């Protein structure tokens, strides 16, 4: 199973009435979608509102999703359209301008700056996460590193990786899991160190 089709199982679960499965898709793509929306709506708070609308629209439209494209490709289009519509209505509506002014409060400003990857704080957070992950990957045993790289960067299925690494699929699954565990231990240190990430990650 390729990376593009790896969400299909969750999508089918949502289509079958399992709303919790959609929560997992949101957890998986939240950063990507919010960042995508921020190309159109610069304010981090507004961008999250728009991203939330995009996810809600996706959830409502999911029964009609036939899997002709990858889930994220489909979600990407919804997010872009929602952002464009929000941008158009924002130009017409004075409400958004007032909301922008509300962000002058210091506490909200700090949160916004931390969330915004273009600010020094946001860049620092992003860089620290990336550096931690990369350092953890470098320290992995060769088999684990190869397995996780083939999966995450090459998008290969477990079956394809098993053929490439000449090992059973179960072993591939175990190697990828152990690689993630090792990286996760390092990542938890970062989050526990006060970067203020969320209870979602801890």
């Amino acid at each position, binding site marked *: 199973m390729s990376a593009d089709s*790896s969400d299909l199982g969750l999508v089918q679960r949502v289509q079958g009435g399992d709303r919790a499965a959609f929560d997992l898709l949101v957890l998986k793509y*939240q950063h990507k979608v*919010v960042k995508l929306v921020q190309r159109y709506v610069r304010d981090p708070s507004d961008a*999250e509102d728009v991203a939330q609308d995009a996810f809600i629209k996706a959830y409502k439209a999911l029964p009609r999703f036939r899997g002709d494209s990858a889930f994220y490709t489909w979600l990407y289009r919804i997010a872009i359209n929602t952002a464009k519509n929000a941008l158009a209505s924002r130009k017409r509506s004075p409400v958004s301008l007032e909301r922008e002014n509300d962000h002058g409060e210091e506490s909200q400003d700090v949160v916004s700056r931390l969330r915004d990857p273009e600010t020094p704080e946001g860049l620092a957070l992003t860089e620290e996460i990336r550096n931690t992950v990369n350092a953890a990957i470098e320290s992995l045993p060769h088999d684990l590193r190869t397995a996780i790289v083939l999966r*995450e960067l090459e998008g290969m299925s477990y079956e394809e990786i098993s053929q490439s690494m000449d090992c059973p699929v179960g072993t591939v699954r175990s190697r990828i*899991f152990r690689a993630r565990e090792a990286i996760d231990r390092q990542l938890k240190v970062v989050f526990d160190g006060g970067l203020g990430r969320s209870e979602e990650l801890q």
Partner: protein
Amino acid sequence: MIHEELESQVSAMLDGELPAPECELLSRRLARDPALRARWSRYALIGAAMRSEPVAGASAGFAGRVSEAIARPSTARRSTHVAWKAMLGSVMVAGVAGVAVLVMRADIGDPSLGLEPQPIVVASQRAELPGRSARADSGEPASNEPASYVVPPSPGKGSVAVLPAQLANYVLAHSEYSSPLTRSGLLSSVVSNEQFAAEVAAQQAAAQRRAEQQQQQVQAAEGYAGP
């Protein structure tokens, strides 16, 4: 050990490699186990970081807010923008309805709205009294020719105010032969347009003057000095 198996399943599920029956059980477990959900998020974050995708876009609790918004009734989860659109739509509908009511009430000539019953139609259909108005305004003596009344062409349908206009013109044209009191009462009942009524009154006065002049000429011709 059991927990490690669950975590292994989370890893496989994230990759879409977990068999469907296990996927169903794990999905239920994830729904009620925040720690396991956090692990799911971190595993997803690792992949995103490796692919240089955004890893810090959404704020803490974003996914939870989306979940709550989906769980809420559709009327309560509208965002500011959507609510604003809805309000704008309502205002537009109310506006259209209001205009419709005004038009309908104007059609039936409701005087309380300050709208005259089709004044434009009345003005356009109002018959001119040739050679009279201008002379009356300029104070020239009236012609001896009898006043002629031009019947306005039929405007077709939708011209309710034509009848009062025609009637008013008829009264004007024959004002010499009616008493001032009767003429005034009749005109006021058929003319509702104030501007038009003023013009009618002016024409009426001019006709009155002409009638008096004619009477004086007749009396002078007959050698009548008056009382």
